[in-house]
C-alpha cells in the first residue's frame, strides 16, 4: 500500500500501541483506531478577484472500544500518548454506559484489501501560486465575454487508516483537485465543475470556457409556463437526482422500513434501460477500497435493467438480518448502518448534443439546486434549476429560460428515460461525485417558475 509523508505507517502503529496500552490498563482488549490526516487548500474567487484563499492541515484520531457486547467511540485531533489515553478512557466510559447489543460484530482480523492507487504527487504539491495563475486565466475567460466569474480551485491530499488490536490494518492515501466556476452575465449565468484525483485530469481553461459559453447562450431568458416537459438533464443534473435515492439501497434502511425499497427487492421498479452499480474500483471512482469497519468494498449490482438486485449491508445489519456484509458499513456505532459510496450508472451511446437533437421541444437543464425530499416513499424531490436552463426547439437549444421549481419522483424519472450519453465522472453540489450519464426523459414535472 502507498505510504505518504502526510501520515506515515509508524504514526498509526504507534497510536495503536498507545491505545492498546491504555485499554489494557482498563482491562479492555478490543480497540479499533480510525486515523485520518488531511492537508487541503482552496482558492476562492468572486467578482473576478480572489477573495478567500485558505489552507488547512489536520489529523484526526477516533478510538472505538468494545467489551461485553457494547461499543462506543471517542475522537481527538491530537496524537500524543496522553491524548490517545484520554480518548481510550472516554470511549471506555461511553461503552460502559451503552446498552448491550446482541448483534454487535466482533472486531475484524487482517483483511486482504488490494491497493487503490489514487495519490498523485503533482496534486499534493500544488501551490497557492499555481492555483492563483489558473484562476486568473479562468477570470480572464469570463471577462473577455463581459461576465463576472465566481468559483473555487482546490487541491489536497488525505489519508484514511483503520487498524485494531485484532491485527486489522487498512491504509489509503488519495489526492483530490476540484475546479468549479459560475460565470454571470447581466441576466443569465453558466456553470461548470469537475473533480479528479489527479490534477492533470482537470482542464481548468475548458471548464471556464464552458461556464462562460452557457452564460452567453442563456442571455435574455424568457418565461414559459410550468408543466410537464421532455428534458435533457446534463450529467450534473442526473447526479443531483440519482444521488437522492442512494441512501435507500441500505439493508438497515430497509430493516427500519424507512427506505422506498422496503419489500421491493427483486422487483422491477425502473425502466429496463436503467442499471446502477456500486463499484469502488471503477477507474473514474475515488475513495478508500475498504469501508468504515475495515472490510474490502465489493462490487454491488444495485439495479440491473430496472430490477432492484442488491443493497449495501454492513456487518451489524448482516448479523441482524442473517445476510452477508458487502463492505459498505459505516464506522461503528452509527445510526445509518451502511452506504453505497461509489455509484456507477450505465449509459448509452449518445452525446448531450445528440440527446438535444432528438427533442423537437423541451428543456435542457445544466444543474439543479437545493433538492429536498417531499415524499420519502414515492421519492418525490423538489428543487430548482440553476445556471443554464434552455428552451429546446427543433433539436436545438434556442434560448435561455427563467428557472423552474420541480416536484419530480426520481422513480418515475427513471421509468421515463428515452436515451442516455456515455457516463462520466461527475461533480455537483447536491450529491457526492458519481459516474453518471446525461439523459433525455419524458414528462419531467416543473411545478413553478421563479422570477429570474
Amino acid at each position, binding site marked *: 500500500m502507498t505510504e505518504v509523508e502526510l501520515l506515515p505507517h509508524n504514526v498509526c502503529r504507534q497510536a495503536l500501541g498507545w491505545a492498546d496500552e491504555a485499554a489494557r490498563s482498563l482491562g479492555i482488549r478490543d480497540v479499533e483506531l480510525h486515523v485520518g490526516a488531511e492537508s487541503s487548500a*482552496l482558492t*476562492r474567487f468572486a*467578482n473576478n478577484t480572489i477573495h478567500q*484563499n485558505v*489552507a488547512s492541515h489536520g489529523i484526526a484520531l477516533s478510538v472505538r472500544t468494545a467489551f461485553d457486547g457494547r461499543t462506543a467511540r471517542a475522537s481527538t485531533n491530537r496524537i500524543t500518548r496522553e491524548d490517545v489515553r484520554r480518548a481510550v478512557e472516554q470511549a471506555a466510559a461511553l461503552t*460502559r454506559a*451503552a*446498552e448491550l447489543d446482541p448483534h454487535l460484530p466482533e472486531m475484524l482480523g487482517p483483511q486482504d484489501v488490494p491497493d487503490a492507487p489514487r495519490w498523485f504527487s503533482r496534486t499534493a504539491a500544488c501551490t497557492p501560486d499555481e492555483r492563483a495563475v489558473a484562476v486568473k486565466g479562468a477570470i480572464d475567460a469570463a471577462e473577455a465575454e463581459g461576465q463576472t466569474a465566481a468559483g473555487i480551485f482546490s487541491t489536497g491530499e488525505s489519508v484514511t487508516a483503520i487498524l485494531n488490536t485484532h491485527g486489522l490494518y487498512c491504509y489509503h492515501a488519495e489526492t483530490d483537485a476540484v475546479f468549479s466556476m459560475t460565470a454571470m452575465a447581466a441576466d443569465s449565468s453558466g456553470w461548470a465543475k469537475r473533480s479528479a484525483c489527479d490534477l492533470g485530469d482537470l482542464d481548468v481553461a475548458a471548464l471556464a470556457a464552458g461556464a462562460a459559453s452557457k452564460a452567453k447562450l442563456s442571455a435574455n431568458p424568457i418565461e414559459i409556463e410550468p408543466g410537464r416537459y421532455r428534458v435533457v438533464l446534463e450529467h450534473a443534473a442526473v447526479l443531483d437526482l440519482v444521488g437522492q435515492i442512494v441512501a435507500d439501497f441500505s439493508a438497515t434502511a430497509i430493516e427500519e422500513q424507512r427506505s422506498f425499497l422496503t419489500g421491493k427487492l427483486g422487483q422491477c421498479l425502473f425502466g429496463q434501460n436503467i442499471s446502477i452499480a456500486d463499484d469502488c474500483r471503477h477507474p473514474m471512482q475515488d475513495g478508500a477500497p475498504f469501508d468504515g469497519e475495515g472490510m474490502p468494498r465489493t462490487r454491488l449490482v444495485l439495479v440491473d435493467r430496472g430490477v432492484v438486485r442488491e443493497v449495501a449491508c454492513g456487518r451489524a445489519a448482516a448479523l441482524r438480518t442473517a445476510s452477508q456484509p458487502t463492505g459498505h458499513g459505516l464506522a461503528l456505532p*452509527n445510526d445509518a448502518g451502511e452506504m453505497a459510496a461509489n455509484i456507477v450508472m450505465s449509459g448509452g451511446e449518445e452525446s448531450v448534443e445528440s440527446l438535444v437533437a432528438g427533442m423537437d421541444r423541451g428543456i435542457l437543464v445544466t444543474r439543479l439546486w437545493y433538492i429536498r425530499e417531499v415524499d420519502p416513499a414515492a421519492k418525490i424531490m423538489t428543487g430548482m434549476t440553476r445556471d443554464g436552463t434552455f428552451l429546446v426547439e427543433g433539436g436545438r437549444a434556442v434560448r435561455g429560460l427563467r428557472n423552474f*421549481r420541480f416536484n419530480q419522483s426520481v422513480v418515475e424519472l427513471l421509468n421515463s428515460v428515452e436515451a442516455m450519453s456515455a457516463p462520466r465522472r461527475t461533480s455537483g453540489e447536491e450529491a457526492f461525485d458519481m459516474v453518471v450519464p446525461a439523459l433525455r426523459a419524458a414528462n419531467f414535472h416543473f411545478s413553478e417558475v421563479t422570477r429570474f
Partner: protein
Amino acid sequence: MNFLSIARRALDAAVSARGVAYADVRVVDIHSRSLSTRNGRVGSASSGESLGCGIRVIANGAWGFASTGDLTAEGIARAARLAAGIAHASSLALRSPVQLASEPAHRAVWRSEWKKDPLAMPVDEQLSYLLRVDEELRRVEGVTLAGAQMECWRERKVFVSSEGAEIDQTRTVMGAGCEAYSFREGEIQKRSYPNSFGGQYQLGGWELVENLDLLGHAPRIAEEAVALHDAAQCPELTGTLILDSSQLGLQIHESIGHPIELDRVLGSEANYAGMSFLTLNRLRSLRYGSDLVNVVCDARAEHGPGMGTIAFDDEGVEAQCTPIITAGQFTGYMTSRETAPAVGEERSNGTMRASSWDRIPLIRMTNVSLLPGHQSLDELFDVDHGVYMETNRSWSIDDKRYNFQFGCEMAWEIKNGKKVRMLKNPTYSGISTEFWNSCDAIAGREHWTLWGVPNCGKGQPEQVMGTGHGASPARFRNVKIGGGYGR
C-alpha cells in the same frame, strides 16, 4: 495549556511575516458528546475533542488564511508563513485592496450560562433517558422506527488581533429531540418533537432537555405518526396558512436570514450558496413584509440563549441588534468589517463566524427573529377556512432566495376557527416578499420560541453553523398550498 499565550505567539509569527498589514488569530477548543437511540438500541455514542488555531492575514491588500492542529512553536510558525504566502498569491488576482471598518480593540472574557453541565453528567444517565423516550414511542402500535438523540458541545475560543483585541469566549450548546416513523402499505409518515432534524438547540445545559419533556410528548407524536396514514391528503388550493413557530423559524431562516447576508448580496457566495434578491438598491426602499412584520438580527444575550448568541464575532466585533425589517420595510443587512462600508456603515454589525479553527469566518446568521405580535392563538385561528401546518419535513429555496417550497410533517384543516381534520403530506410555496407581505396575524410573546437550526451550510469549503430564530405562530393569506404533490 494557555490558549492566550498560544494565540499571542501565533499573532507574533503572523505580523512578522513579509508584508502583513493585519492579522488575527483564533485558538479554538471544542469538546462534544453525541448519543442516539434506534428502536431500543444505541445508535451512536461518541465524544470528541478538537483543538487548533486559525490565522488570518492581510498582505499586499489580499486575504490569506491557514490553520493547524499542531500548536508547537514550529507548527504555528509554519501556518503563519503559509497564511502570508497565500495572501501574496491572492494578490495575483486582486481588484482592490481589502479595507476593514474600524472596531475598538476589545478585551473581554465571556461565558454562556448553563445550569447542569451536559458534558460532566454521567453518560448512562443521559442514555437511559433517551432509551426511555425511545421505549415510550414504541409503545404505540404502528410505530415502526423510534429514535431519540442528544448532542452537546462546549467551544472555547480565544481571539487576538494585531489591533490589540484579546477576547476569550466559551459557549455551551445543548440539543435534543425524538421522532417516530410509521410505515404502512408503502407509505412512510413521521412525527418529531420538539422539532425535526435533531430537535431543539440552544445555549445551555441538560436543563434544556428536562424542560423539553421528551418523555411527556413521546406518546402524542407516536400516535400522530400512525394516525397520519388515515388522514386526508392535503388538497391543492390557494388560501390561508397558519404556521407553528418551529416551521416559521425555518421560514425566517431561508427567506429572510440568508438573503440579508451582505457577502451573498455582493457576490462572494455566487458559485455555491448563490446570491440574493435583496440587491443594494432595495435597502430602505423595499416593502419586505406587512406592517406587522418586524425582524431583528440580534446576537446579544438579552435576545435569549440562541445558537447565534455571542458576545463578539470572529472578527472581534461586539454583539449587536440590527433591525432587518421594521414595520414591513427592509432596513438592514448582516455585515462584516470588510463589507459594512458597501452599505454606508462605518461599523460591522458583528456576524462573522467560523465553524471551527480550520475555517475562515463568514457572514452567518446569529439570531434572526420575527418579533412577537399581539394576537392570541384563538384570534390566529379565527378564519372561515385555512390550513395549519406543524414541524418541517422539507425545505427548498432558489439561489437568490426568492421562490421557496416547504413541506411539513402534519397539518390541520381549519373551518370556522376550529381544527376539523388532520391532513397529511402538506406543502406550501411562494415568493419571499409576497409571502411576508401576506402576513396578517402574529401570536404574542407567550407563544414565542427561540429555535435553533444546527445544520446551516454555507461557504467553500462548506461550513455548518448553528443559527437562532425566534418566532410565534403566524397567519398568511393567499398562499399556494399542496403543490408539492401536484400532478
